[in-house]
């Protein structure tokens, strides 16, 4: 099976979907001539032309709005934000137009749009360029939120997102674009709303998503050497969350840790914990713990940034705590 990068996986997904359906088009900053800020759209302008790959000015609210309008008129736009930090300027279009149009029009206007771009921290990008937005977006009824952590998941989910007739928020990661993984040749889709068990074990559950999946798998492999075996549940889709998969795992292991990129207050993990305590109360041998970013704007200084971020060591400490081990 071919091993490709996360970036190439996204490129293949875009290419395949744009070939399959000529209503699909890509718009964003530097997506065309520059081949993409992170080279995700490499070669697409050449293949599909200016009408299908549209370079936009630095005007997120503007091109997001054009995207929504074109979707309502029958096209299937993929709007790229250079990072989701910049998308704050466009969030009115995402939340108030895209998410609510179907409802407010009484079912008359679907908005088959995908908003995609890197989310969360990279390395020393500073406070304004390192925020994770899944919490903000998963809060809104009317949109779906995906966060793939591997090339295989990225391709399959993006294809499903583009084919979905409703707005999908697609969260990638600068740190993920270079990661490699096996991706089969040939057509495949990953359904939205289904989680994936990336490691299996019955000692403890880790619930996670996005780039934290790589940390979780690292932790699982390390602890397996000590005889502790974890269920690593990759949510893949944050909204709607695959709660049945969460319950099945927690009922088996009787203890859980949530590993997330964002901050503590009202983070995704808080929602996961709520689901678990409600449905798995009698199965819990310990409180559910969360591992997340420190409650500060992301530091620029290298050493401080490392301390602020969630990592394998903090995750292992949490797991040991819920297992009542030293």
């Amino acid at each position: 099976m071919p091993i490709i990068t996360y970036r190439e996986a996204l490129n293949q997904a875009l290419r395949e979907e744009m070939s399959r359906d000529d209503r699909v088009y890509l718009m964003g900053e530097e997506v065309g001539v520059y081949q993409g800020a992170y080279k995700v759209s490499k070669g697409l302008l050449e293949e599909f032309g200016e009408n299908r790959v549209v370079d936009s000015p630095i005007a997120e609210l503007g091109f997001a709005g054009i995207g929504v309008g074109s979707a309502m008129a029958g096209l299937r736009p993929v709007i790229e934000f250079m990072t989701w930090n910049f998308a704050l300027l466009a969030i009115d279009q995402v939340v108030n137009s895209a998410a609510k149009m179907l409802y407010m029009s009484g079912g008359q206007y679907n908005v088959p749009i995908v908003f995609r771009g890197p989310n969360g921290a990279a390395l020393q990008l500073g406070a304004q360029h390192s925020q994770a937005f899944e919490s903000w977006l998963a809060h809104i009824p009317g949109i779906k939120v995906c966060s793939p952590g591997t090339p295989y998941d990225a391709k399959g989910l993006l294809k499903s997102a583009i084919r979905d007739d409703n707005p999908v928020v697609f969260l990638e990661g600068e740190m993920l674009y270079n990661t490699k993984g096996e991706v089969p040749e040939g057509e495949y889709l990953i359904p939205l709303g289904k989680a994936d068990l990336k490691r299996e074990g019955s000692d403890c559950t880790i619930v996670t998503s996005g780039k934290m999946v790589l940390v979780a798998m690292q932790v699982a492999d390390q602890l397996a050497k000590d005889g502790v075996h974890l269920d690593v549940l990759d949510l893949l889709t944050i909204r709607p969350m695959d709660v049945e998969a969460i319950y099945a795992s927690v009922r088996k292991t009787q203890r859980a840790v949530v590993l997330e990129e964002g901050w503590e207050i009202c983070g995704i993990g808080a929602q996961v914990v709520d689901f678990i305590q409600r449905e798995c109360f009698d199965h819990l041998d310990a409180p559910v713990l969360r591992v997340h970013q420190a409650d500060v704007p992301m530091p620029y200084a290298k050493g401080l940034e490392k301390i602020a971020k969630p990592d394998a060591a903090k995750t292992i400490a949490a797991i040991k705590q819920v297992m009542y081990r030293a």
Partner: protein
Amino acid sequence: MATKIFMEALSPTMEEGRLVKWNMPEGAAVKSGDVLAEVETDKAVMELVARGDGVLRKQLVVEGTTAPVGSLVGVIAAADEDIAALVSGAAVPAPASAPSTPAAPAAVAPAAAAASAAANAAAPIAAPPAAPAPAAPAGTGPTRSSPLARRLARESGLDVGAIAGSGPGGRVIKRDIEAAMSGGGAATALSAVRRPPSAVGDFTDQPLSQIRKTIAKRLAESIGPIPTFYLTAEFDMTRAVEMRAQAAGLGDEFKVSVNDIVLKAVATALAAHPEVNAHWLGDKIRFFNRVHLGMAVATDDGLIVPVIFDADQKGLREISVESRALAAKARERKLTPEQYTGSTFSVSNLGMMQIDQFTAIINPPECGILAIGVLEDTPVVVDGAVAVRKRMRVTMSCDHRVIDGAVGARFLLDLRRMLENPLMLVF
């Protein structure tokens, strides 16, 4: 004027009683006739009734204690009366001293006795009759435990509060429950009183209940001294089963069981054979002219034999109703002594438990007992060919001091004729 409360002989054969439950607390107002307590006698649970008016000033025995008949178990007096002199003369182990009666430190009900007896060695609960909890929780405040630990404890019948917790703040967690179940227990200095490894351990000790003591004593007096022999006969019950089915078809009030038919037949046969309807009285044999049939009933506590008086004079329906009522009462342990004494002969049926045949132990001073086995389709030879018939085996245990072989056999012949031709029961 104070009234002493004694352990009374609540049944003719009672020698000691176990005070199961005080119905009123110290300080309660008492009138003559009020039920003070429930006492377990050799066979049943009886009420101990107040013989005077006043206030229940003192309960001298703790719930669960056994006291001999005649001992002082409490005092009723006026609220301000000085009863010091009366109390000091208590013949019964007072709660403050370590209970000398074996199996009953603070156990409440027989079910709890098993575990508590072994467990509470560390701290005999030396308080006036508090309802004894299985164990006091270690430390102050409610027990901390994970939801999972609580569920596992509940499912295993363990008390979470009695298990030492190894989690933060003394939280009882899954591994503590698992340890308790496997008999180890989390080794910790925290709790002094612990539930023992009861459910799954090497063995369980059960203190003798009154009924078990009585069965043991009485039947040991039977099989040793009584020279017993056994007669087994297999009856053809096809017609009896048919008769029962036909009767049932006539309506609900004609519904009887095969056992009822057997009881009626046995009673009728006994009326015709006083030589087996007798008591060995040591210096004489008493042959009875009336038939009082003992009917063995299995209860949770043990075997008890209520009596159907003048069973030969009663019709099938009456026997059926009475036998059902007595069995129910027996299981609730509410039989009065009059209801389980006075039988002239007994019947025991283990057919419903698929026993082919068995030898029952004679209930002295009776001289015989009939053990009934399972009724089932069996291949037999009829007129030279194999046929399937409903067959049932009975075994009669006979005291040879009263009954000879031929005498017993003749009785069984009559019984056979009646059961194989049940129409005879009408005549």
